[in-house]
């Protein structure tokens, strides 16, 4: 008996054995029979159907290369994985279900028709490929669902943290407007406002960090802007907040492109604050110029060179715990976020550091999305 025929005639027996296994899978133990069986039968039928039809070379090649296929197996697997996620199964449990299905089918076929099993090499390969297709589709759907939930979670987290911050910020303004505040009270209110700004930046950084670590790309909203103008705005802002330092900005002509303006402001700000925080010199040089089709941003500060072993991990998040530097404060997400912004704009970032030349960050950005 062929494997496909065995699957069709012994479906109920296979499902019975598979169901016993599925019940042992964590939440599977509490799911009712109909939920456990739901779609498993359809998966078996779609596999049998697939095995009964001749396979084209092009299909075989696609499977070997792991390319996306959207046949009946994938359609059934997509519905199955949705149902399983809703029932609380995780990806490993879902994959284990497929493993159990494969084991049950092959074990029962061998027990029922040992001869057919012994010469069924080709069919077993085809069957295994079909199971793999089901697993691949399950992983893909699971990933899509995870990304959606992750983005929603991060959105909610930002929202829930910033709403009370907003309320504090507005209350501080309201307090500042109250009559007869003495100097000390004014100072207190302005400390509240500064802390709100710092917390807001931190919330943004933590959300960017979480998004990057969870694998979601940084969303980019491109509009036409001049990079020199953005650099000047941030350099002026950082300079006025840090009068002890001297930010020297040089910009060339022709720096217009499509960028996420807010993100590039954040890039300049993080690089300049990093130079202020970690450089021992008072001069910070920033140049923004064209380099062929690209824009080259260079930020340079003087000071003790960064050790070679630290250069390789300087863009890693939370690197402060691993690099000994008394000057470092905060979460250490600034350069990680810079590298995420560069990557979201399809650019590159490099760092070099020596006693003679200082520490130099070089960023190359294309003007437009490719």
């Amino acid at each position, binding site marked *: 008996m062929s494997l496909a025929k065995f699957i069709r005639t012994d479906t109920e027996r296979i499902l019975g054995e598979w169901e016993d296994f599925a019940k042992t899978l964590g939440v599977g133990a509490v799911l009712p029979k109909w939920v456990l069986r739901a779609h498993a039968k359809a998966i078996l039928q779609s596999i049998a159907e697939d095995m009964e039809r001749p396979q084209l070379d092009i299909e075989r090649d696609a499977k070997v290369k792991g390319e996306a296929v959207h046949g009946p197996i994938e359609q059934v697997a997509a519905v199955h994985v949705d149902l399983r996620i809703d029932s609380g199964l995780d990806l490993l449990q879902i994959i284990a279900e497929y493993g159990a299905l494969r084991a049950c089918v092959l074990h029962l076929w061998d027990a029922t028709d040992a001869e057919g099993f012994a010469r069924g090499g080709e069919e077993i390969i085809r069957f295994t490929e079909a199971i793999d297709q089901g697993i691949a589709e399950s992983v893909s759907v699971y990933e899509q669902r995870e990304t959606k939930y992750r983005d929603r979670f991060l*959105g909610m987290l*930002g*929202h829930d943290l910033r709403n009370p911050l*907003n*309320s504090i910020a*507005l*209350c501080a*303004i309201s307090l500042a407007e109250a009559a007869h505040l003495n100097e000390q009270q004014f100072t207190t209110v302005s400390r509240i406002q500064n802390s709100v*700004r710092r917390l807001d930046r931190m919330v943004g950084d933590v959300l960017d960090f979480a998004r990057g670590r969870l694998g979601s790309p940084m969303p980019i909203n491109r509009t036409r802007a001049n990079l020199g103008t953005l650099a000047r705005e941030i350099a002026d802002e950082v300079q006025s907040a840090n009068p002890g330092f001297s930010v020297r900005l040089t910009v060339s002509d022709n720096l217009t492109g499509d960028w996420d303006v807010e993100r590039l402001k954040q890039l300049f700000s993080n690089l300049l604050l990093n130079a202020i925080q970690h450089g021992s010199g008072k001069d910070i040089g920033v140049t923004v110029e064209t380099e062929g089709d690209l824009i080259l941003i260079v930020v340079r500060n003087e000071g003790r060179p960064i050790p070679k072993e630290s250069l390789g991990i300087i863009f890693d998040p939370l690197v402060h715990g691993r690099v000994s530097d008394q000057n470092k404060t905060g979460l250490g997400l600034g350069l990680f976020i810079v590298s995420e912004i560069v990557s979201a704009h399809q650019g590159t970032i490099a760092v070099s550091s020596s006693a003679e030349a200082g520490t130099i960050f070089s960023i190359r950005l294309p003007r437009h999305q490719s």
Partner: protein
Amino acid sequence: VADLSEKSVILVVDDDADSRGTLADLLSRRGYVVESAENGKQAFEYLNRSKPALVILDLMMPVMSGWEFLELQQKDPNLRGLPVFVMTASGLVGDIKANALIRKPIDFGMLMSMVNQALEPEHAGH
């Protein structure tokens, strides 16, 4: 003392009671008449009775979100031209049809200059 009937009415829509209340206080102190709603549905109920000069709208709200409010507003020929400033505590807002987008925590100075600019012809002073 200016006649209150001449003041511009601003509808503040936000489910966060503290933010809504404080923003309403600050706007009132600047001479605006402020009406409040906790969500898009309440905002529409108000708009059925009266028409403000400006709506300051939060996005993520229960019952009816700011996105739903904007969608319905665009479909209503009587409300389509009503100026709406969207404020949001979320990073991603998507493609929205609004006159301004303000991030929370609000830069109040910037908000006021935008409000004054939008309502200048009908708002006397402040």
